[in-house]
């Protein structure tokens, strides 16, 4: 579904991604780990089309389409979803209005009729229960005054509503207590199917106890320097990143 080939990107003339290669197939869960500043969040930003970053080389194809040529909203319509590390507060825009607009824009893109108000509210109710998001939160402004855990649950709720083909979870575990982590992870697992895929970006093994990856990649200095099965995450938890850094740095 997703083929990233030699992707290079920079922000304010500083090159962050220096040739990333990654292939993701439907049904797979990929974990991307790596030390701070290695480019993990940049990768998620570039894949979703954040205008702050400039792609300087390489290609990304998503179901055969040139992803980099699409606007952020069209990438969303094609089925890419990013769960933000820091979800943005939008005062004055209600969750309901926000979600309905998002849903209907996608349906328009797909050539479908907008959802009726009743159907939409029913769907909201249904999906809310997946992450145990309180009705009160759903009627407030987007993320405004939400706690850290509520914000992350709200991200997964939106994911449930939009039913993406590829979800990118950027540090979804940061700022979560163990109960919230369980709820968020179980939400992600509920939404998992053989037709969709997930990229989990994380520092720690902890989240991977709940969301089991098929592949673990280490991103360092803007490149994926190591890929292996889930056992790699455990090894990293035990030994840290230094041994990989040394290995890579000595090769250069």
């Amino acid at each position, binding site marked *: 579904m997703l083929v990233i080939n030699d992707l290079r990107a920079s922000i304010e003339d500083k090159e962050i991604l220096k040739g990333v290669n990654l292939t993701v197939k439907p049904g797979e869960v990929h974990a991307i780990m790596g030390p701070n500043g290695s480019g993990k969040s940049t990768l998620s930003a570039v894949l979703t089309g954040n205008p702050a970053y400039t792609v300087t080389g390489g290609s990304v194809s998503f179901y055969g389409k040139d992803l980099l040529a699409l606007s952020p*909203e069209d990438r969303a319509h094609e089925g890419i979803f990013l769960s933000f590390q820091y979800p943005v507060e939008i005062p004055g*825009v209600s969750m309901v209005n926000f979600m309905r607009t998002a849903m209907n824009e996608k349906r328009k893109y797909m050539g479908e009729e907008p959802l009726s108000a009743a159907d939409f509210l029913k769907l909201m109710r249904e999906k809310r229960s997946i992450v145990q998001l309180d009705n009160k939160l759903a009627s407030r402004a987007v993320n405004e005054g939400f706690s850290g855990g509520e914000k992350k649950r709200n991200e997964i709720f939106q994911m449930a509503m939009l039913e993406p083909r590829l979800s990118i979870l950027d540090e979804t575990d940061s700022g979560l207590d163990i109960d919230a982590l369980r709820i968020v992870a179980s939400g992600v697992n509920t939404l998992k199917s053989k037709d969709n895929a997930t990229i989990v970006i994380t520092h720690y093994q902890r989240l991977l106890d709940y969301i089991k990856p098929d592949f673990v990649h280490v991103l360092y200095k803007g490149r994926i320097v190591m890929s292996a099965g889930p056992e790699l995450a455990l090894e990293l938890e035990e030994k840290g990143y230094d041994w990989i850094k040394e290995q890579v740095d000595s090769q250069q």
Partner: protein
Amino acid sequence: MNALKQYIDLYDESQALIEQQSPALLNKLRGVARERLQDAKLPRKGSEDYEATDLETVFAHDYGVNVNRLPFEADPAETFHCDVPNMSTCLYYTSNDAFHSSATAERNIGQVVVEPFSMAAVDYPELMDAYYGKLASLNDPTVALNTLLVQDGLFIYVPDGVVAERPIQLVNIFNAALDMMVQRRLLIVVGKNASIKLLACDHTQSPDYHYLNNQVVEIVAMQGSTIDYYDMEESTPLTSRVSSIYVDQHEGSNVLIDGITLVNGFTRNNFHVEVNGEHTETQLLGMTIASGEQHVDNHTFISHNAPRCHSNEMFKYVLDDNAVGAFAGKILVKPDCPRVEAYQGNRNLCGAPTAKMYTKPQLEIYTDDVMCSHGSAVGQLDEEALFYMRTRGISSSEARRLLMQAFVADIIDGVRMDALKDRLHYLVEKRFAGTLSNCAGCMAACKKK
């Protein structure tokens, strides 16, 4: 060049005619107004209190003035029917310069007096005499010009203790088939412990003519009275408006003034509030949405002349394209006015690099024990929020619209009438969606008879 000259000459030539067609009361002040205008000049852009706004240019256009009081078309209600859903109002019209009543006007009978000056001068001579022209300052040349040429107006009176059941809605329409200037004038007197809600909306039906509304509104809020005055403009790019609203607040009165500009050409609104009694509440709110070449300038002054009063002022602007916005807010707390609380805010959103905002907040405080604040900010849309929304599939234009709407939401929520609040949310949504680019857009939502 002096744009005033053409109007002064007109007056000098037609004084007899003007006076003959007006109630005597209005004629009494013309002499003073004429004197004040003798050496007066309209402010040019860059002069004090007119940093971004040029009145000379606005008045220099060759407008027709209906000195002869020739009647225009019969009944504006026949062609224009503006409904606020779920709000039962008493409806009145001003068609160009002439006042019309409507069938719904009967509703408040026995409670509230709404009469043209020509009738009120006969029915309520003492009240008219006591309050007409008392608040408005003839030192302002536009007020002097209004006073010089005005031939009729609308008198609204709520007697002591009367709580008006239904809001008064005054629809002001321009539809003359010629370029025209009118002197609209309102005198609103609300008695002790009386209460009323007023909605005034300015519309222009003929988009091809230049119109200028040079209006003066005087509002007297007696002890313990409550007044809501919503002043909404939804006109055309060729419509200009210079409006001066004067408010006199007595002890314990509660006044809300809300100035809303959705569509216009050129607008200068002056708000002048004198707080003359203790324990008053003043809400001065404003919302401007401007795009294209729209020009909107709100100039406000709240003078706290008594202790233990509370005022809250907030104006918000959303500017796009080449629109120009200006705001000046002055709050004065006079000596020996302890425990005054006065807050002022002006927040502005520039949606395009070519849109301009001029803002000037001012506090002048001559008493120690007060709580006052002012704040002003000009900014752009939040890029992070825009991107967040786009990753959810919301298009860039839709995301911008939602954020702009959210920005003014608190001003709309300050409206103290639920039906009007809903209506405004709807109108603003349409305005940002671009389907309210002129009055025709509004009329799509109005019933045409």
